[in-house]
């Protein structure tokens, strides 16, 4: 399985880091600057709250988002994920740290620079849609452009384009209150896309939707991403959503990053009991891909499988053909490894206890 991971690391090293969050701290309270020293000395969140009346929102966050990548930040409520995403466009001021976007520190920007950054570089989609209730769909989609004082004909042209892209054609003159939740969030998505910002910040964008509609919206997002190649930061509390959408996943707990990696890495190697517990109900056969369990080999024997074939498909194919092993090919068609049916079966077995006992590490 080592070979698979190296492959992924190589892909990452090539692409540029679009967003870099460095040593970010956020403390909520009246005297945040002064309790920073205590936090640096390693005071616990609990103690800080009880003895000093300050809430530790984020502690020493370091996250990189490669260009054109979807970085999912996952955590339960109260883990600080919504606070974190608001630092990227500085809706919240940090207590200390850096947020570099394209090499430029967002936190050092003047008001004017920040305004322009928000207008043209990063747009945001909100959990509760946050549409303007007194504006129609098309006026909502054109809101960001109107802020930038784009001409009206241009606004209408571009808004119409994005309305069509998210499948709301015919609803241009409806008010948000007349639409269902899923449709409202399509407006939210179109509004964010209409400014052509390279960065898309999605704060639990699909969490308020019904499961079926949520899956639908995830499909729309992934479809758009194949063409648009935005740099996306996606916040969610839903592991299935994280695994489906994220190229890279960071797991946040109590304001700290507890693990970062691809979905494969997180499911195969949960770094502690907390995450192991989190992933125990995941459909491993669907999430895990051939690359995660393959052994390096050059032998061209058995059915050929792509690196990113999910295990459920791979196993289906093997059993259909009556084979116990197959060979794994890279995107150029070269054989780089093999996969045993037995290895696949043990990989999808639901872990009973903690990761240590499973011998994954």
């Amino acid at each position, binding site marked *: 399985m080592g070979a698979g991971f190296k492959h992924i690391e190589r892909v990452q090293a090539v692409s540029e880091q679009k967003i870099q969050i460095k040593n970010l701290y956020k403390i909520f309270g009246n005297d945040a600057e002064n309790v920073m020293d205590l936090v640096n000395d390693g005071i616990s969140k609990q103690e800080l709250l009880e003895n000093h009346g300050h809430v530790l929102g984020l502690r020493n966050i370091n996250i990189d988002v490669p260009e054109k990548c979807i970085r999912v930040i996952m955590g339960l409520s109260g883990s600080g994920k919504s606070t974190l995403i608001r630092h990227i466009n500085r809706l919240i001021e940090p207590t200390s740290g850096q947020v570099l976007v394209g090499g430029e520190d967002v936190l050092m920007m003047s008001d004017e620079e920040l305004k322009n950054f928000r*207008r043209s570089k990063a747009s945001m989609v909100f959990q509760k849609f946050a549409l303007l209730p007194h504006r129609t769909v098309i006026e909502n989609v054109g*809101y960001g452009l109107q802020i930038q004082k784009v001409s009206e004909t241009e606004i209408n042209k571009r808004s119409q384009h994005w309305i069509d892209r998210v499948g709301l054609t015919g609803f241009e003159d409806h008010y948000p209150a007349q639409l269902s939740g899923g449709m409202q969030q399509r407006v939210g998505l179109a509004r964010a896309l209409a400014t052509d910002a390279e960065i898309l910040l999605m704060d639990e964008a699909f969490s308020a939707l019904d499961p079926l509609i949520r899956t639908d919206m995830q499909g729309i997002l992934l479809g758009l991403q194949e063409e648009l190649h935005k740099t996306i930061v996606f916040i969610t509390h839903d592991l299935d959503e994280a695994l489906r959408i994220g190229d890279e996943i960071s797991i946040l707990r109590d304001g700290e990053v507890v693990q970062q990696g691809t979905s494969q890495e997180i499911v195969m190697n949960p770094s502690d009991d907390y995450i192991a517990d989190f992933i125990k109900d995941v459909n491993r056969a669907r999430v895990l891909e051939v690359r995660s369990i393959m052994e390096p080999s050059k032998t061209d024997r058995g059915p050929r499988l792509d690196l990113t074939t999910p295990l459920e498909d791979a196993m289906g194919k093997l059993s259909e053909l009556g084979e116990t092993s197959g060979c794994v090919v890279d995107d150029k068609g070269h054989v780089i490894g093999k996969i045993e049916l037995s290895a696949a079966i043990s990989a999808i077995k639901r872990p009973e206890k903690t990761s240590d006992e499973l011998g994954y590490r």
Partner: protein
Amino acid sequence: MDFFDSFPAMERQDLRDLKKGIDSSFRDFSRAYGDEIEGFFEPLLHFLVWLEKLLVNAPWLVVIIGLAILAWLGSRSWKLVTGTVIAFLVIGYFGMWKDTMATLAIISVATLLCIAVGIPFGIWMARSDRVQAAVTPVLDVMQTIPSFVYLIPVVMLLGIGKVPGLIAVCIYAIPPLVRLTNLGIRLVDSEVLEAADSFGADYKQKLFGVQIPLALPNIFAGINQTIMMSLAMVVIASMIGVKGLGLPVLRAVSNQYLALGLLNGLAIVILAIIFDRVSQQYGRRLQAHREGSGSE
């Protein structure tokens, strides 16, 4: 024991001197600046006189048609328009046309003045908690202090006439508008504001593009209240020289003319009902976007 028998009040002489001091210093102030302050309100007086003359001198049919059009623009309801026309015809038939026009003029000017002053004040209040904390008690005083009490300094400063009457009306009628503007803006969904922020909206764009449009229903409720309260002040304003429906009421009170008082009082009520219904209907139309078709 003396201490418990009678309240340890200020010496009579001291109290008299204190009151005298306040009175004379205010008199000095009004002597020194009265003319300038009167000059400041001069344009307002001209406008008020102009509007009153316009309404009184215009042919009654033209005025009624004008009012009917205004009622239609505000409410888009034929019922209300018909009601308005009939109400004014009845008022005219009972010989109160001139007084009603004078009252209409002062109510309109008072409402415009309250809007011009009250809405910016409400916006300022919504912007800062400190301003809100400072202004709220002032509004409380303006609403609860007996009107006669502030009529004294107003009359001392400006004498008897239309302008002091107008100011007295505004002092009483402006607080709800300021309060409701402040409240309306503060009640705007913080998430919508955050979204506006995230798209790089500046203060002006947020205020005029998001906050005021979303606060409009509340602001409109405030305007409605202001109109109602200025109508309520018509009688008191007539005590310091404002013409209109209040004057006959005042005369009726002092001479025990029951019918005169009743008729003019009812005319005020009719004006109030028309203003109220039309402005409420208008406020409701502003909220059309809130009525989803329930396609959930």
